[in-house]
C-alpha cells in the first residue's frame, strides 16, 4: 500500500513537470519549489555525514565508528581541527568587520584546485593527446586525424590574424569542429530519448501497470 502511495506521488510529480512543456503553471511551480528545498536539504545532510562527521567531528571529539578511530590515528586528532577551522572561517562573512578572514579558506581552496589543474592536465590533456595523434602518414584515416587536429589547434590561435596558411588551416579546423559537433548532437539524441523512455516506462509500467 505504501508503495502505491509513493509511486502515485512520483507519478503526479512527473506529470507536473511535463506540464511545463505546455506552459508555466501552478503544478510545475509547486514541483519546482519542492525539489529545490528537498535537494538542498539532501545535499546538506549527505555532505555533513560524509565529510564533516568523519573528518572533523569524529576525530576532534574522539568518536569511534566500530572499533576504528575515524580518519586519523588518535594522536594526530588535532590535524582535523584544520579543516574545521577553515570551514568556520567561511562564516566570518556574516560579520562585516571580519569578512575578509574568510578569504583565507577560499585562497587555499581555489589555489589547491588550481594546482591540480596544472601538472596532471599537462599529462592527460596535452601530452597524451598529442602522442595519440602522432600517427604515421600511412593511411587516409591518419591523414584526416592529423590535418583535423592541426586545423582545430590553429583555430584556437588568438594572437595571430587568421590569414594565409593560418587562415586556410583555421577554416579546415572549423569544418572539423562543425562535423564533430553535428556528430555529438546526433549521438546524444539517443540518450535523451532513453530518459524519456525511462519516465514513460515508469508511468505505464510501475504506476499504471499497463504493460
Amino acid at each position: 500500500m505504501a508503495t502505491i502511495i509513493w509511486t502515485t506521488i512520483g507519478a503526479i510529480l512527473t506529470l507536473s513537470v511535463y506540464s511545463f512543456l505546455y506552459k508555466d503553471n501552478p503544478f510545475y511551480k509547486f514541483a519546482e519549489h519542492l525539489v529545490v528545498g528537498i535537494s538542498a536539504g539532501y545535499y546538506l545532510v549527505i555532505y555533513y555525514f560524509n565529510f564533516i562527521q568523519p573528518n572533523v567531528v569524529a576525530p576532534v571529539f574522539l568518536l569511534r565508528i566500530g572499533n576504528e578511530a575515524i580518519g586519523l590515528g588518535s594522536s594526530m586528532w588535532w590535524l582535523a581541527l584544520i579543516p574545521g577551522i577553515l570551514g568556520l572561517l567561511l562564516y566570518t562573512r556574516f560579520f562585516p568587520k571580519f569578512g575578509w578572514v574568510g578569504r583565507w579558506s577560499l585562497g587555499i581552496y581555489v589555489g589547491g584546485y588550481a594546482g591540480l589543474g596544472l601538472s596532471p592536465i599537462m599529462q592527460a590533456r596535452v601530452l597524451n593527446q598529442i602522442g595519440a595523434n602522432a600517427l604515421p602518414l600511412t593511411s587516409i584515416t591518419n591523414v584526416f586525424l592529423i590535418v583535423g587536429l592541426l586545423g582545430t589547434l590553429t583555430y584556437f590561435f588568438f594572437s595571430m590574424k587568421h590569414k594565409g596558411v593560418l587562415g586556410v588551416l583555421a577554416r579546415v579546423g572549423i569544418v572539423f569542429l562543425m562535423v564533430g559537433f553535428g556528430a555529438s548532437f546526433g549521438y546524444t539524441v539517443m540518450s535523451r530519448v532513453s530518459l524519456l523512455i525511462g519516465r514513460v516506462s515508469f508511468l505505464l509500467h510501475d504506476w499504471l501497470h499497463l504493460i
Partner: protein
Amino acid sequence: MNIFERFMNIDRRWIFLAIGIAVVIPFFFPLGLPISVTEPVQNLYDALDAIPPNGQPLLLAIDYAPATLPELEPMSLALLRHAFRNDVNVAVLTLHPAGYGLAERALNKVAEEMGQVYGEDYCFLGFRPGISAVILGMGVNIVNVFPEDAYGTPLNDIPMMDGIRNYDDIPLLISLAGWGAAEAWVLYAHQPYGQRVGAGVTAVMATDFYPFLDTGQLIGLLGGMRGAAEYEELIDHPDEGVRGMDSQSSVHILIIALIVLGNIAYFGARRKRRQMEREAA
C-alpha cells in the same frame, strides 16, 4: 506569411506532442528490429567472460545517479546477469552519494533472480566520498578504504573477499557512470596501477571515451541504451534495453523528418521571397 514560413515558425509544442506519441507507441506495438553488436561491447563481454569462476571478483562500480538511471541500470542488470551466470564473484561499490540505493537495488534484484548468496557470490561495499582518494587508496589496500561492507561486516569476514588485497587481485573493473567517475577510474586505477578498466556510460559521453579505447586505457565500452541492448543480445536476455531501442528508432526517424521538412520549408520560403522581390522589381 506563406505556408513555408508558417511551418518554419510552428509552435514548438506541436513538436513536443509528436515526440511524445513517437515514444509511447512502440510500448504497445513493438517493432522488434534486429540489433548488431559493436566491437567495444563485444570486447567488454569477452573480458568478463574470461574471468575464472568462483575466484577473484569482478569489481563493479555503480557510480550513476538517478538522472541517468534509464540508460545505465539496464547495463548493471545485464553485467550482473552475465557474471552470475558464469559464477563470477562480484563486489559492488559506488562513488556517487546518490548511487548507494541504486546499486543496492540493481544488485538485490539480480542476486535474488539468480539465487546468489551474499558474501559468497557477491558483496556490496557501499559508498565512500572522495573520488580520487578512494580509487588511489584501493590500489594500496582495499581494506584501508572499505574496512567493512555496506552493512558493517568487516571485509576480512566476507568469504569471497578473502585474499583480495588491491587491484592486483581484481581481474576486471567496470564503472557505470553518467559523470566523470569512469574517467577517474581510468586516470587513478588504470594509469598508476595498471588495473583493467571497462566502462558503461551514457550515449552522449561515449564519444569522449573513444580516445581511451584508442590508447588501450579502456578495454571495452557500453554506450547508452544501445550498448545495454547489445549486451542483452550477447547474454541472450533481452530486457529494457532491447525494448527501448524500438522507441529510439521511431523518435530518431521523426527528428530527421522534422529536419528535412524544416529545410524544405526554409528553401521554399527563400525561393518564394526571391520571387516576390523579383515581381516587385
